[in-house]
């Protein structure tokens, strides 16, 4: 299956001077359904109000700010409590006006509806008798 949502080279965002915490890349699954693509991104420690989804010039940007109560300096470290960020390029068969996002249990779900013309149409074969 051809990948319809491709990742754009991840770039560090340079717009703020407050970026003291490391940025993390969330793990992402992309599922194709008949009339939409469903993208799920894992952002543990990000509450609903900390998640941000924007679409600009064909690029979908996912961001998550982790809660401040996550231990800043643990003795034993297996993950770094930084904010999350990842970008994807969306192809023309996605309707940029119909993108919906929700956040639950640290998982950001983004639903990207396909353009009407991109949907699979089933054509009934008539018998010509």
């Amino acid at each position, binding site marked *: 299956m051809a990948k319809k949502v491709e990742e754009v080279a991840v770039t560090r965002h340079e717009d703020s001077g407050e970026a003291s915490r490391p940025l993390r890349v969330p*793990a*992402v*699954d992309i599922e194709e359904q008949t009339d939409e693509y469903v993208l799920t991104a*894992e952002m*543990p*420690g990000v509450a609903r109000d900390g998640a941000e989804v924007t679409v600009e010039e064909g690029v979908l940007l996912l961001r998550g700010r982790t809660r401040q109560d996550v231990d800043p300096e643990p003795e034993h470290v*297996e*993950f770094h409590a930084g904010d999350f960020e990842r970008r994807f390029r969306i192809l023309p068969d996605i309707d940029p006006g119909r993108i919906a996002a929700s956040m639950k249990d640290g998982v950001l779900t983004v639903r990207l509806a396909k353009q009407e013309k991109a949907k699979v149409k089933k054509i009934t074969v008539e018998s010509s008798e």
Partner: protein
Amino acid sequence: MALIRFDPWEDLLQVQREMAHLLHEPFTRLAGALQLGEYPPLNITETDDAVRITAELPGVAGKDVDITVTGDILVLKGVKEIQKGSYGHRERRTGPFSRSVHLPGHIDRDALKATLSDGLLVITLPKSMVARKRKITIESKG
């Protein structure tokens, strides 16, 4: 017809630039998405009155996580279910998981507390009174 100058070195230089860029990306950024290593990842913090274990479990419901303490071993296990569909791209870890942590001896096991919210499991293990740090006032005589 315009001639295009053939420069084999330009391609090599481009590869070199890209490699340099990759090498300057902190490894943790890539490791984060690939979820290498043991699952779930744990952070452990010790304060004056408690030991706190934080585990990243995005998309896992509280009912699917089981925490047991036997002797001085804490076992955290469960299963992470992701709805099966026609995935074009998969990175998220799924399936059963298990981690064990050796606890320090001075934990009050009956006071263990665990909360799971926003995909973060926080297990708080208060230290027993004997093990807590106490400040002793030095009295002056005379």
